């Protein structure tokens, strides 16, 4: 099993899945991310990322209901697992620690 280390895009997708909660499926994730990031979000990439997340045990999936919009096909709904939550928390902790440790001068401010 690979580590629970998250890639940047994996982290975004996992966050989107958690954010969308009960309505997290590929198209919704694509839309959600497209709204927030300033670059095209590609369906294939999202798909593959979600497969990877599932293989890592960070999300689980189930089939949802079929809709006419989808030509009568079911969507695959994703839910973050406790392991997924831990991975997100861990990622945030690392960021926070680093943020906290950045000296003010690093961004051109006066050193304290």
């Amino acid at each position, binding site marked *: 099993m690979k580590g629970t280390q998250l890639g940047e895009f994996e982290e975004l997708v996992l966050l989107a899945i958690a954010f969308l909660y009960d309505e997290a*499926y*590929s*198209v919704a994730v*694509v839309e959600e991310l497209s709204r927030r990031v300033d670059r095209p979000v*590609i*369906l*294939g*990439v999202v*798909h*593959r990322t979600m*497969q990877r997340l599932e293989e890592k045990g960070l999300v689980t999936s189930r*089939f949802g209901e*079929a*809709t006419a*919009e*989808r*030509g009568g*096909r*079911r*969507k*695959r709904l994703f839910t973050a697992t406790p392991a997924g939550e831990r991975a997100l928390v861990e990622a945030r902790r690392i960021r926070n620690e680093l943020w906290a440790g950045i000296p003010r001068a690093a961004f051109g401010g006066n050193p304290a």
Partner: protein
Amino acid sequence: MKKPATPRPPGWAHKLLTRITAPHLLEELEGDLEEMFRMRLRQHGYRKAQLFYLLDILLLVHPRLWRRKPSPYPKPVYTQKLYLDMLTHHLLLAYRSSLRYKSSFVVNLVGLSTGLACAMLIYLWVSDEMGIDKFHAKGDRLYQALLNRQLTDQVVTEHATPAPLAEALVHEMPQVAHAVATTAGIQMPLFTLTAGNKNVKAAGQFAGRDYFKMFSYPLVQGDENQVLRDKNAIVLSESLARKLFNTSQNIIGKAVVFQQEQTYLVSGVFADVPASSSDQFDFLLSFEVFKDLMGPGATNWGNTGPRTFVLLREGVDLQGFNAAIRGLIKAKDNAANTEVFLRPYRDKYLYDTYENGRLAGGRIAYVKLFSIIAFFILLIAASNFMNLSTAKASRRVKEIGIKKALGSGRGTLMGQFLGESLGMAFLSGLVALLLVVLLLPEFNQITGKRLVLRFDTRLIAGAVGITAFTGLLAGIYPAIYLSGFSPSAVLKGKLPQRPGEGWVRQGLVVLQFALSVVFIVAVTVVYQQVQFIQSRNLGYSKDNLIYFGVEGSVKEKLEPFLSAVKNLPGVVNASSGAHSFLGQQSSTTGLEWEGKNPEDLTQFEVVQVNYDMLQTLGIGMSGGRAFSREFGTDSTRIIFNEAAIKAMGMKEPVGKTVRLWGEERQIVGVSKNFHFQSLHEAVKPLFFILAPGATWNVMVKMEVGKEKETLSRLGAFYREFNPGFVFDYQFLDTDYQALYAAEKRVSVLSKYFAGLAILISCLGLYGLAAFTAQRRRKEIGIRKVLGLNEMGIVYLLVGSFTRIVAVAIGIALPLSYLLTSRWLADFAYKIDLQWWYFVGAGGVVLLVSWLTVGFQAVKAALVNPVTTLKSE
């Protein structure tokens, strides 16, 4: 832009997606794409939606798209012990199934082993043919010079070159390392050599001094720079040295008498020329001696005769060199109509047919033909295996189902089936090897080769390669087909029927029988053509005619010898000539007649004869008379054949005069056309002139039925008249047949191959028929109970096979027509293709297949329905 009523994403892209996507991903992906398409349709319109749809599909392409869902079960861990266990298990199963289904086992074994034996024999032959002339160490730089001669309407390519060519090449072209001239043409002439009181006939030629530096005939004694340097030098082969001196050691400097005239001293001994050389000779003499014999002709650029061989320096480009020497002969002799060019020496044997100055093949055609035949026979044999294994599948579905249910993967099963067919192939390979050993002497006799089974790496690699190829070919389809069964379906007792499965099986049968029909037609046509050639009236009689060389006392006292021979009992007639009547030998364009177009380059074959030659050969006259002693002045006369008269466009030729090489000659007669070449060629213009001094062949016609006594009388007389020479005669008839040796070999071999092809195909059909009868036994039982009689059942079973064989015949006949008419096109005199060749071949195949299937059908029809219906 016009919008479709309900905008849909492009169908083809969708279809493509469904083909490559793994099943467990397909539904959600289709849904996603559709949903996004509709969304974009609303936001951006049809065109953009379509574009994005395609783009999305394109960006989906990734191994994850088609990777199958991982199995939820752990993979089996293969240990060495498990491998071993599985192997013994497979072997056990294969052994049991061969015991249980003996008939199909035997069918497979016989079919595969005969097919393999056949392929191995052909492999031996082909590799022998390909190996000829390939043993020379400098072979990549070794060339033969050929001439392209421009005639009125065509270009002919000749081996005979001007005698000074070799020296000129060495002196004028810096790219040339060595060049030599040699005398012999296609066959080395035989000469009489004497050492002490031993006379031996041996094949030999004159050769330039660097001969041994160019060709890899290793010298056992002597130095390659020295052996051909002196005019009185002779180089012997080891076996000839042993014949002459009983030893090949320490014979340098010993004397050998050539033709009872000239004495030469042994300057070297070379290892016997290997069978893989296209030039076969026992001794060599210096070419300088030959030049003296030729006199002024030795420096003449217009005369041709010797062959010229060239060794180029390393890195010389052949094309550039050929362009440079193109005009060489023209520069020496302005009247020449020839251009010289080099061709690789190693191509001399296989690629020797030139048409209009261009390479048109040669023996390589037969090499290719037999390789193709070998492949097809293997294909037929492998089809049997494929057919029987897939047909037998019904008996093995349970085994496959259980194995799959127990966790065996598709790969393992494929391995098992491929392994079985490879095992079968190697078993057959062993049987085939045995067959090859048994058949090799016979095969050698037919092909005129001395093939031996030497177990060197090449042969083993070849045999293993052929066998493995057959095994894989035979096993690949059953392996894919059988391992693809779904376990749940087969364990429920359903035999999965894929569409096209029946097609494959029937297609294989069609292929087998189509090939058989083609083989039969080809055999018939080749046989008929060979018969036609050998029985064709050649315009002269070659039966009971022997010839031997004019040498020694016979040469000195030719007239007395001939008249004495004529008086021997049993001799019908005798004469001498300078032509063997077995091929083109010497021709000229130096003939002038009234009204000749100065541009005309018609070649006339020159035949120098003694008195009585036309009578001895039985050549008929269509006008005038033959040469006769009664007139005494016939040495200034000339006789033409009808083809020559036609070529000159002469009316009333007898009595007219022509100029030959500047001298006036009166036409005394016109002979009927006769074939002095192989029947591949049309009869060409020819003339006879009376020149007893230039003749080198005595021809003797004997009485029918008294050949044996006459020959012994002739031999006794010859030895008395010409002591020191060996009476070595040949039958013209035999030599004539040798002209068609290639055709004859093809005829005999293809007969065997056709027989084999039919045998193997029928074996397969037999197996299939047995299988069908077995599978339909319940149906047959019910039909019988309901009142169908035995004939009806036979008809039912035979009918379904007849259709398949009929399709095969329908495909094969046009194909065989095309192939045979192309082969015949090569002959100037040929048979017409008869309709019955084709109908006959089809009929034979149909009949044989009826017999094969009929036997099974009758067996099935006679079974009591109770026995078949009571089971279950």
